[in-house]
């Protein structure tokens, strides 16, 4: 049959943008289809507003947030400045299994969550790709670090990642732009911690905020505003709008459709190939379809699973590409909480200027060459940083009047924050299903999330807390607070899995090329493909896997294999 496009990319976020870029640059005619509204780069109306320009001074209309943003409001990046970059929860419902919670943070718009992401970019190592094989939990990854290393090189160079080389096996170095500096307190903490525990390395966050401009791509270096989620008209952080979309558009082979939610992917049992997608216009509710020789599913981990489950057909009654029956299972999110907060005396005569858009990271140091975790076999790491208290400390303190005002005029005590990220075990019981008894405004069944952390994550959180306290105190901090209780699933905004990669078609959905075992011209290259979670931020790995899969798909297409 004649196809309208060579490829359809479902979704325009971090991985959808990469798929569109790679496929168009390889010569393919591509349709990128996005369920949300169009946002042009630079069209960020609240980017430069001051708090006093907004009716609620940046804190937002809580009446509206309660009724319409009940989940999204829990995201730290959700403010009156950024609220239009998040979904309306009332209009976009989902359900959770009885007695479970999951905070699903979403951005339905061109660029997806690439506009609101945390921008932390970490390579995974063979401790991560080998984790499932090592302790026998989950299914073995069919790839190792060497398979992905050149693709990490490629995506880091294009994205523009600033970071410091540390030579760590558990957090491989990459193609970095010059690092942003540790502040005076972080530098001291790094040295004090390293003096006592040489294997614990506090380093600057590796972030998709550029320290060197890319004038040829229209991207400036970071201006140290740290208001990224409002949108950055400088293009200083990586987003679809700032980076992959202009590259894909430049080829002249990209078509973008917005406000169209993909209902299902069409499958031809005779050829055992997908033929295109069916979609609904979210405004008019009109249905449409588009055809292509291959489909890249990049709707975001949970929504990609939704599309596959909702694409069940006579030949594949349990969902497209689900002959294994594992589609929707083994979803993960990092267990995440404030592990430790301390006041750090001795730096009262020091301050900083500018708002650095990244914190620090302390990569994992447990369960590497020997299993030394207490009650868990995987990793945990920290992100955080040192900061000087501002006027908001007045909300915690007694006092008022002239002296109080004069006190709040000056910067307050230095504090050091360590937020723990504990690796999440892949479990069959943590899963996504469709609730066909309830539908959304587009008539689509609601996604049902059934997720809970288990003993390993709780043990990791306890150890992360105790270790944070031990490090903060050893480094001269006065410990104030720390938690061992993870936020609800979704808190880390690293939800992943559901269409896991594996060697065996009987126990996994995708092969080592992010290609459906059951359907040769279907690729799923967002977080859904993940077989384990590691304990570092996953987006860079999704990007590298997407670029690698796109290259493989184009090769297969040219060889007539798909």
């Amino acid at each position, binding site marked *: 049959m004649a196809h309208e496009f060579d490829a359809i990319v479902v979704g325009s976020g971090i991985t959808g943008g990469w798929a569109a870029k790679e496929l168009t640059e390889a010569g393919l005619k591509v349709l990128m289809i996005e369920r949300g509204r169009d946002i042009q780069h630079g069209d960020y109306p609240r980017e430069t507003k001051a708090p006093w320009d907004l009716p609620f001074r940046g804190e937002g209309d809580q009446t509206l947030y309660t009724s319409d943003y009940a989940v999204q409001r829990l995201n730290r990046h959700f403010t009156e400045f950024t609220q239009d970059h998040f979904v309306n929860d009332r209009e976009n419902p989902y359900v959770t299994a009885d007695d479970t919670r999951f905070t699903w943070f979403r951005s339905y718009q061109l660029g997806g969550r690439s506009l609101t992401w945390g921008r932390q970019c970490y390579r995974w190592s063979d401790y991560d790709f080998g984790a499932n094989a090592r302790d026998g939990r989950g299914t073995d990854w069919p790839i190792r670090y060497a398979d992905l290393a050149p693709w990490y090189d490629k995506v880091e160079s294009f994205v523009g990642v600033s970071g410091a080389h540390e030579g760590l096996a558990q957090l491989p170095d990459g193609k970095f732009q010059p690092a942003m500096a540790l502040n005076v307190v972080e530098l001291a903490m790094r040295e004090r911690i390293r003096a006592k525990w040489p294997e614990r390395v506090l380093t600057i966050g590796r972030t998709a905020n550029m320290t060197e401009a890319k004038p040829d791509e229209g991207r400036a270096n970071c201006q140290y505003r740290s208001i990224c989620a409002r949108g950055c008209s400088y293009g200083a952080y990586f987003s679809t709008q700032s980076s992959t979309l202009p590259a894909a558009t430049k080829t002249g082979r990209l078509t973008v459709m917005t406000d169209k939610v993909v209902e299902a992917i069409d499958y031809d049992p005779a050829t055992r190939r997908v033929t295109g997608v069916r979609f609904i216009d979210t405004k008019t509710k009109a249905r449409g379809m588009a055809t292509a020789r291959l489909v890249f599913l990049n709707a975001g981990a949970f929504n990609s699973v939704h599309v596959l489950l909702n694409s069940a057909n006579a030949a594949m009654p349990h969902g497209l590409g689900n002959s294994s029956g594992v589609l929707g299972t083994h979803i993960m999110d990092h267990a995440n909480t404030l592990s430790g907060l301390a006041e750090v005396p001795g730096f009262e005569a020091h301050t900083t200027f500018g708002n650095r858009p990244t914190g620090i990271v302390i990569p994992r140091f447990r369960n590497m060459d020997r299993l030394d975790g207490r009650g868990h076999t995987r990793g945990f790491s920290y992100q955080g940083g040192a900061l*000087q208290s501002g006027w908001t400390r007045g909300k915690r303190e007694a006092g008022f009047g002239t002296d109080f005002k004069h006190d709040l005029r000056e*910067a307050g005590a230095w504090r050091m924050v360590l*937020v723990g990220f504990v690796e999440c075990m892949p479990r069959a019981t943590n899963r996504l299903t469709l609730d066909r008894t309830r539908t959304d405004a587009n008539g689509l069944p609601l996604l049902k999330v059934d997720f809970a952390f288990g003993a390993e994550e709780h043990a990791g959180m306890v150890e992360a807390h105790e270790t944070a306290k031990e490090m903060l105190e050893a480094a001269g901090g006065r410990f104030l607070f720390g938690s061992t209780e993870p936020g609800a699933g979704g808190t880390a905004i690293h939800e992943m899995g559901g269409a896991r990669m594996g060697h065996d078609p009987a126990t996994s959905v995708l092969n080592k090329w992010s290609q459906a075992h059951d359907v040769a011209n279907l690729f799923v290259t967002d977080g859904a493909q993940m077989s384990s979670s590691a304990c570092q931020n996953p987006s860079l790995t999704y990007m590298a896997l997407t670029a690698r899969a796109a290259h493989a798909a184009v090769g297969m297409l040219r060889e007539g294999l798909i």
Partner: protein
Amino acid sequence: MIAKAPSDPTELRDHLARRDVLRGAALLTLVLGVPAHALVANPTGVSGHQMALLRQVCKLVIPRTDTPGAGDVGVSEFVVLALDHGLLGDGQADHLVWLEHVLGANFATIGAAQQVDRLGAIDRAAFPAGPPPATPSPWRRIKGLILTGYYTSEAGASRELQYELVPGRFDPDLPLHPGDRAWSSDWTAVDFG
């Protein structure tokens, strides 16, 4: 980092509503020694007396010095708007009724020193040494909104403190001198400070 609450939006909304009603009622009963339902149902909004009282309290919290104070930049109007829209969780009526009650009907007519004494007692009780009390005084919320209203006003953010939307660089270690004004545009400090 993020408040615990149910994830289903409807369930979460109900949870928040229940929590706020219960907490508000418990507080009122505790603080005033009267049944809460008599107060939380007040539908009439803000009275002239409440508004004048709030304005006076704003002036006491952040007085005019070499820069404008909270009474000069519309902070009381912000507090009313914020309470009306549930900023920090509770409705406005109970907070302002509470404030009227604890400050006393004659608050406007007593001398400045007495006003400071009376507000000081409330403030000290609301911010005891040690961890925050399990049932916080409504004063913590009102004072928090006054501070937000002031330090996010143009005068509070850019004259009392310093405001720079586009720093353009990051200096990791600079000398800090007594009297140096903090940055209201240090968003991390605002969030975590």
